[in-house]
């Protein structure tokens, strides 16, 4: 049984609350202090966008045949929406950086404005996204403190 301090420590490292199933899987691993395996479990689903500049070519490459239609739809929307109009400028220059929160927010906003392309926009948002696993030493440090162990 994990102690409340251990549970809090692992949730802190994961950056989210842990599910009951995860806690059940973690229990024997924490008892054995298999910190490598613990890190793998709490790393599940953790991703981070890396600096990745995209342009019209990336849109077409990712969306396939729907890419051209999507760009047309965005341009059409830009006739009435100035944020979308100017948002297309970096796309035309191939410098829209998907790691910038504002750029991702603008794409998410497009999902609401162009619901027919929501799934394609999701694919676009995955460009440059890589796994962001928790290092097992970070797990160790958090657990050692929670368990009151002498640690460096």
């Amino acid at each position, binding site marked *: 049984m994990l102690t409340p301090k251990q549970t809090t420590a692992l949730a802190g490292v994961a950056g989210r609350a842990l599910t009951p199933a995860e806690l059940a899987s973690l229990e024997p691993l924490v008892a*054995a*202090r*298999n*910190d*490598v*395996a613990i890190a793998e479990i709490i790393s599940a689903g953790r991703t981070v966008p890396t600096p990745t500049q995209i342009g019209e070519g990336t849109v077409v490459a990712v969306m396939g045949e729907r890419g051209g239609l999507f760009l047309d739809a965005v341009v059409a929307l830009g006739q009435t929406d100035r944020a979308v109009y100017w948002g297309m400028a970096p796309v035309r220059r191939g410098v829209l950086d998907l790691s910038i929160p504002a750029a991702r927010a603008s794409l998410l906003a497009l999902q609401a404005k162009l619901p027919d392309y929501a799934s394609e926009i999701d694919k676009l948002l995955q460009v440059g996204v890589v796994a962001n696993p928790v290092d*097992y*030493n970070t797990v*160790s*440090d958090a*657990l*050692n403190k929670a*368990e009151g*162990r*002498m*640690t*460096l």
Partner: protein
Amino acid sequence: MSNENIVVWGAAKTLESAGASIANNALAAASALYSIEADGAGFPDGEFVLTVNYSTAPTDMSLLSLYARPMDVDGDTDTDVPDATRPNMFLGAFQPDNRTGVQTLVLTPLGFVRDLPRKAEYYIHNSGTGQAVQAGWALKVTPRTNKAAP
């Protein structure tokens, strides 16, 4: 021929025979102190041997570090225990193999430490092996010195 520089060893002392489990990145003290005068017959150097057991293979190229905490350095005043802001005296490291089971490890790179503290408590730091050293680990030191051949 005589008077060549030769190496001689004293009787080994067990500093820890059954240590508690050491989690990754945690630190554990050996239960016994080592005194060059009382335990080492005045020999200044020491060869350390660490016996550990892993139930899950440790991460390759990681280390189990050896630290000393000099004791009675000012009368009967000791230095602080190693901690995050002051690791104290690093002496060397043992390199476990990436496998399970019992491993008998010698210190790297030379296998021994020159000029040990006069009296010290010794610590093992599980430095990034990723796995807990199982309870039952042991640490021994064999006094060593150089002398002229008879």
